[in-house]
C-alpha cells in the first residue's frame, strides 16, 4: 500500500470532492459556451447586430480566464488530489483508461489552439473562418465530454468490465448514455448563467435581447437535462438506492440539488420569457453560487452512492481490491490482508514500525486506522464524519468494544471490511479508543 494522507477536519475524499465540484462549473462552461457563442456570432452577421460581437469577445475572454486558467488547473487538481488521497484507485483507473485520457488530451490541444485563435482573430479574419474556428472548438470540447463521461460513469457502474476487463465494455457502461446526455444539456444551463453575467455588462438593448435569447437556450437545456437526469437516476443499480435510503444526508443532498435546479429553471423562465431586465450582474453571481451548491450536492450523491466502493464492485474506499477479476488475473485482497496483515504491505515504513511492540503500539495503531478510515473520516473531533464523535456514539467502554465494532464493519452496507489481521485490528482499536476517551 502507498503512504496514506490525512487531512484534519475535511478528510482526503472531501478535498477531491471540493475540487471536482468546482471543476464542474468551468469544465461544463468550456463545453457549452461556444455552441451559444457561435450561434450568437452568426446572428450578429445575419441580423447585422455588431453589438452582439461585444458579447462574443467578452464571453470568450471570460471562458479563457475561468475555464482555461481555473478550469484547466482544477481538472489537473482532481487528478492530483485523487493521487494523494486514493493512489491505488486512480492507478486502477489510469491503467485501464490511459488511452482514453490520452485521446481526451488530443482534444484539449485542439481546444487550446482554437479558443486562442477564436479570441484573437475576432474581426481580423473573414467571418466564415472565424465561425468555423468556433465550431471546431465546440465539437472538440463536446468530444472531451464524450470521453471523460465514460470514465466517470465507469466508477459507479463498471458494467460488463467486471467480467471482461475490456476498455469499451467499461467505457460504454449502463449509465454512460444517460449521463452523457444529462451533462450535455445541463451544460447549456451552466453556459446560460455565465452568458447572463456577461450580458448584464453590455448596453441596455443588447443586454435585454441577449438575456432573453440566452435564458431561453438555458431553459430548454435545463428541461432536457432534467429529463435525462431522471433517466440516469433510473439506471442506477439497486444497491445504490439502498445506500441513498440508508443515509439521511444523501437524501438531503438530493433535495438541495433539486431545489437548486428549480431555482435556476425559474430564473431562466423569468428572464427569458417574462422580465428580461431582471438580469443583472449581482443576481447572476448569486445564481452562479446557487448552481455551485446544487452541483456540489449532486456530485456528493454520485460519489456517495458508490459506498463502500471507490470503483463499484471492484475496489473498496480503503483501496483494497474487493473481488476477483479473472479476466485481468486480479485477486481479491480481503483475505490476504486478513491473513498476512496490513503492515507487511506498507513497504514505505521503517522496519521498527512494521512489527507491533509495546512501545510503538499506539503509533502503529494510528497508521493502520489511517489506512482504513482516513479517506472518508476526519480524525479530529469536528469535521467530516469525525471518528471521535461517531465512535463515541457507540459508547465504547474499552478498546475491546471498538475492536468488536471494527470486526463487524462489513455488516454495514456502506462500509468496507477492516483491512488487517487480528493483532493489527486490536492495535487500531486501542488507538481509536484514545480518540474517544481524549478530553482534548
Amino acid at each position, binding site marked *: 500500500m502507498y503512504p496514506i494522507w490525512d487531512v*484534519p477536519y475535511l478528510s482526503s475524499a472531501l478535498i477531491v470532492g471540493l475540487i471536482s465540484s468546482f471543476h464542474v462549473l468551468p469544465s461544463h462552461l468550456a463545453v457549452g459556451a461556444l455552441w451559444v457563442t457561435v450561434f450568437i456570432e452568426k446572428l450578429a452577421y445575419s441580423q447585422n447586430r455588431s453589438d452582439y460581437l461585444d458579447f462574443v469577445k467578452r464571453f470568450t475572454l471570460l471562458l479563457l480566464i475561468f475555464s482555461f486558467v481555473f478550469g484547466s488547473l482544477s481538472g489537473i487538481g482532481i487528478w492530483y488530489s485523487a493521487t*494523494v488521497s486514493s493512489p491505488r484507485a486512480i492507478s486502477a483507473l*489510469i491503467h485501464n483508461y490511459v488511452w482514453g485520457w490520452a485521446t481526451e488530451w488530443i482534444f484539449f*490541444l485542439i481546444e*487550446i489552439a482554437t479558443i486562442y485563435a477564436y479570441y484573437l482573430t475576432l474581426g481580423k479574419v473573414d467571418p466564415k*473562418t472565424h465561425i468555423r474556428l468556433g*465550431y471546431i472548438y465546440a465539437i472538440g470540447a463536446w468530444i472531451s465530454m464524450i470521453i471523460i463521461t465514460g470514465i466517470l460513469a465507469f466508477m459507479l457502474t463498471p458494467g460488463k468490465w467486471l467480467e471482461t476487463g475490456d476498455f469499451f465494455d467499461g467505457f460504454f457502461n449502463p449509465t454512460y448514455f444517460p449521463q452523457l446526455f444529462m451533462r450535455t444539456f445541463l451544460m447549456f444551463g451552466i453556459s446560460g448563467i455565465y452568458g447572463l453575467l456577461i450580458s448584464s455588462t453590455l448596453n441596455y438593448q443588447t443586454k435585454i435581447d441577449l438575456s432573453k435569447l440566452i435564458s431561453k437556450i438555458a431553459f430548454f437545456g435545463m428541461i432536457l437535462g432534467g429529463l435525462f437526469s431522471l433517466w440516469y437516476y433510473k439506471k442506477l443499480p439497486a444497491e445504490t438506492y439502498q445506500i441513498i435510503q440508508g443515509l439521511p444526508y444523501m437524501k438531503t443532498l438530493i433535495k438541495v440539488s433539486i431545489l437548486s435546479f428549480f431555482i435556476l429553471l425559474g430564473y431562466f423562465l423569468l428572464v427569458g420569457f417574462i422580465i428580461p431586465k431582471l438580469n443583472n450582474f449581482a443576481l447572476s453571481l448569486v445564481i452562479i453560487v446557487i448552481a455551485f451548491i446544487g452541483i456540489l450536492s449532486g456530485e456528493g450523491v454520485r460519489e456517495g452512492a458508490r459506498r463502500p466502493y471507490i470503483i463499484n464492485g471492484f475496489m473498496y474506499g480503503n483501496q483494497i481490491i474487493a473481488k476477483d477479476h479473472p479476466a485481468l488475473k486480479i485477486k481479491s485482497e480481503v483475505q490476504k490482508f486478513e491473513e498476512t496483515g496490513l503492515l*507487511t504491505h506498507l513497504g514505505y515504513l521503517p522496519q521498527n514500525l512494521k512489527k507491533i511492540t509495546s512501545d510503538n503500539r499506539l503509533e502503529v495503531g494510528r497508521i493502520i486506522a489511517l489506512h482504513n478510515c482516513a479517506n472518508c473520516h476526519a480524525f479530529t473531533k469536528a469535521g467530516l464524519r469525525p471518528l471521535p464523535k461517531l465512535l463515541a456514539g457507540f459508547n465504547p467502554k474499552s478498546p475491546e468494544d471498538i475492536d468488536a465494532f471494527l470486526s463487524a464493519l462489513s455488516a454495514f452496507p456502506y462500509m468496507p471490511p477492516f483491512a488487517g489481521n487480528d493483532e493489527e485490528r486490536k492495535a487500531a482499536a486501542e488507538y481509536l479508543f484514545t480518540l474517544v476517551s481524549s478530553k482534548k
Partner: protein
Amino acid sequence: MQIGAYLNSMRDPAGLPAPAFIFDAFLVLTFALHILFVNLVIGSAILIVWGKIKKTEYSARLSSSLSKLLVNSVSWAIVLGVAPLLFIQVIYDPFWYTANTLSAFWALIFLAFIALGFSLIYVYYLSDGKRSVLWIILSLGLFLLAGIVKHSLAITQLYPESWPSFAVRDGLYISTGKYLHGFEIFRFLHFVIPSLAVVGVWLIFYAKYFRGKYENEYLDWVSGLGIRLALIFSVIQGIIGFFWLLTLPGDLNFIRHPVFIVALILSLIFILYLFLSYRSGNLRPTLMAILLGITVSAMSAARESLRIAYFSRVGYNLADYPVNLSLGSLILFLSTFIMGLIVLFYVATVAYRAGKGIREVGAHALGKISVYLLWLWIIFMVSIGLYNTIKG
C-alpha cells in the same frame, strides 16, 4: 519487505494496456514539448521584466509584445504537461504515487502556485502592460516555486531506499505530507537555464515572422538579442550539465551511457550551429527551431535513461511490467492523434496567416475536412457505444 520487492508489489495489478516502451516513447516526446513551453514561459517572463526595467524603446516594445504571447504559452505549457503526467504514472506508478503521497500537501499546493501565477499574468496582460511589472516578477517567483516542488517530487522518486526516513520522524508517521524531501541544485538549474536559450530562438523566429510588418532596425535588434541569448545560455546549460554529471552517483556510470553520449553530441552540434549562425549573421529560424527540438528531445531521452538507471539500482525494470494489451483503446488514441494533427495544422495555418494581418486566410478545404473529421469521430465512437450497449 525490501524496497525492491515493495516497488514491484505496488505495480498496478491490471498491468499495462500496451508495452512499456510505447508509454516511455510518448513520455519522452511529450515531456520535451512540455519543457520547451515551460522554458518559453520563464524566458519570456524574464525578458518582459528586463525590457520594462531597461526602458529603451526597443526593449519596452519587445516586452509588450512578449506579454501578449505569455498567456498563450502558459496555457500550452499546462496542457502539454498533462500527457507526460499521464504516461509517467502508468509505467512508474510505485515511484510516482509514493513520492506524491509522501509530500501530498506540496503535490497539491503547486497547482495553487500556478493558478495564482497565471492569474497575475492575466492582470498584467489585460492592462496592456500598463500595470507594474511587479505582477510578472511575482508570477515568475510562483512558477519557479512550482518548479522547485515538481523537482523535489522527482528527486524523492529517485531514492526509494530513503522513503522510510522521509515517512517517519522521531518514530511518528508524517500523515500530512507537509515536507519536501530533496533538492539538487544542478539538476534544477538544468531545467531552468535553457529558458533564456529557448526564448532566444523564439525571438529569431519572431524577427522573421514580422519582417515586412515592423521596421527592419527593430527586428534586427530582436534577432541579434535572440542569437546571443540562445548561444550564451546554451553554453551555460552545457556547463551546468557538466556539474550535474559530476554530482551523479558514481555507480550509475552515466557518462558512458549511449543515450547520454548521443544527447551530448547533439547538444554540441546545436551549440556549434548557434555559434556559426552568430558569426555569419545568417539566421534561419526554422532550422534552428528544428535543431532546438531535436536537442531538447535528446535531453529528455537522456534524463529518461538516467531515471531508468536510478530505478534499476532497486531492481525495477520496465521490461518485466506485465502487459494486458488493450489494442482497441490504443488504436483509438493513435488514430485520434493523427486526426488531431490535421485539425491543429488547420488552426495553426489560420493563426499564422491572421497574425501576419491577412484577413482572407483561405485553407477552406482543410477547414471543412477538420470539421468533417470531428463529426466522423463522434459517429464512429457513438456506433461503438451503441453496438456495445445493444450487445450488453
